């Protein structure tokens, strides 16, 4: 398998990256987090391509994958690059962190930083691509491994031995007795919240929490709407361990749009289509991957191009066409499963560069790969 892609390499000593609403976030190894205009970076990088039409097509495609007049079949693989000096000139805003974050995320105009000191929330101004100068707001003050933000300022935090907690801060305030609770008491360093489904990967296996839908925001929200919203936000989700057909707990799970994928301890990947019911069972598609039993599995996530699995020594993409190695022992990697523009992107931080892949989005014949997210149905 060789899924077609365009790749942009950005030279530098980095540890993490994120893309959100036209802004590229990069965490440098010196714990500096900077923002850059994705449009400016693309323009500079793509200017290296001599063909004007191709240049315009690639620019449009990498800015929003729904613009795909770009034909992968008629073009050779395209790799573009930016050196570290050029990147520095494009810097928009910078904050200095106390150390490397364990996770970063950007959602609803907030930047979240997870670290050994907890979770800090920074205001982000998408119009200017900048992190505002206000000091961060501390949402959680103990070790945070991963954060999964969702609509209406709802957050799930994988907090290690404490488990998975949910937090519902209001503008720069949080009442610890009301707005914060432990959802799952099993130790966890990994969670993902897509739509109404929160997947928590714990030391005892994977759990699914199904949250009630939030009311739709009316054109002119009144008090009744806010009351309904607050009530819905505080409603308990239905949580259950994820099991295979033999009622054996899945070791790890992740979402691919509406699909739920999971692996068991015997090296099988399961794909389950319907996740809206808490009573549903995983039963649809199985695939045995011997490597899952032979090498240490670290994490998995999905994009429009398939599922990415991180093993101890390699990062591999799986889809129905096969598998493709992307990197050996990357420093970090990230996909954007809720992003309409960047659902086809894969960020891979290697020792001396950040490589951003934009994969072909041609999901032909209305068939969506079992291991991938449907670009027409992003939650």
């Amino acid at each position, binding site marked *: 398998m060789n899924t077609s892609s365009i790749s942009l390499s950005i030279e530098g000593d980095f*540890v*993490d990256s994120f893309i959100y609403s036209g802004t590229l976030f990069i965490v440098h*190894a010196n714990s500096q987090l900077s923002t850059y205009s994705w449009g400016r970076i693309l323009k500079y990088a793509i200017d290296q391509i001599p063909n004007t039409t191709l240049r315009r097509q690639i620019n449009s495609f990498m800015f929003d994958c729904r613009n795909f007049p770009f034909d992968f079949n008629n073009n050779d693989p395209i790799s573009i690059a930016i050196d570290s000096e050029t990147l520095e000139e494009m810097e928009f805003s910078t904050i200095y962190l*106390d*150390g*490397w*974050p*364990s*996770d970063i995320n950007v959602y609803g105009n907030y930047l979240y930083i997870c*670290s*050994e000191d907890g979770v800090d929330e920074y205001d982000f101004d998408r119009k200017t691509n900048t992190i505002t100068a206000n000091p961060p707001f501390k949402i959680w003050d103990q*070790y945070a*491994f*991963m954060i999964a933000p969702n609509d209406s300022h709802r957050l799930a935090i994988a907090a*290690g*031995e404490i488990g998975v907690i949910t937090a519902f801060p209001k503008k720069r305030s949080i009442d610890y007795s009301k707005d914060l609770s432990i959802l799952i008491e099993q*130790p966890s*360093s990994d969670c993902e919240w897509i739509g109404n489904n929160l997947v928590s990967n714990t*030391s005892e296996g994977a759990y699914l929490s199904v949250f009630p839908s939030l009311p739709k925001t009316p054109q002119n929200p009144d008090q009744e709407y806010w009351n309904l919203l607050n009530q819905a936000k505080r409603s308990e989700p239905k949580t259950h361990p994820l099991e295979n057909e033999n009622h054996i707990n899945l*070791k790890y799970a992740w979402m691919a749009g509406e699909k739920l994928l999971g692996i068991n*301890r015997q090296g099988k990947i399961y794909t389950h289509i319907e996740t809206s019911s808490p009573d549903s069972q995983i039963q649809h598609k199985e695939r045995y991957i011997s490597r899952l039993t032979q090498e240490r599995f*670290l*994490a998995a996530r999905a994009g429009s191009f398939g599922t990415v699995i*991180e093993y101890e020594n390699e990062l591999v993409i799986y889809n129905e066409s096969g598998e493709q190695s992307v990197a050996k*022992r*990357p*420093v*970090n990697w990230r996909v954007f499963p809720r992003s309409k523009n960047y659902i086809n992107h894969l960020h891979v931080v290697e*020792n001396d560069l950040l490589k951003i892949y934009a994969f072909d989005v041609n999901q032909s014949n209305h068939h969506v790969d079992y291991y991938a997210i449907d670009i027409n149905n992003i939650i």
Partner: protein
Amino acid sequence: MIFKAYKVKNDHRQPSLINKKSQWTVSEWDELNLFIIAYNEDWTSPNKPQLWSTNGRENKIGECMDGKSLTDLYIAKYITDSNHHEWHGYPVSPRQYDIPPEKVLSLWLERGLIDKTDKSRIRGGKF
């Protein structure tokens, strides 16, 4: 931090206890040597009487059970009873949330004991 004595604890040197306690796979002298290096290099937790040590990713120092699998360990944690100033240590797994502080990981990275991928994975509980 005061040091009066170091005690090699038997429960981390009894393979029959592997389901409950991590086990050293290096000699008692190596266990002590790792402690002395950590003490001299000030590989400490801020505000906690804890020391951390490693010989790097290539040099296994212990084992533990991770679910049903036996896992190799590369990081040692040393703690003390603050009343007695007697230290002891054991090998730990970041996957079980024993994670050295940022300050120590940065020093290990500078020394070349770990690389960027190791540091990132340790912080994320994936090492």
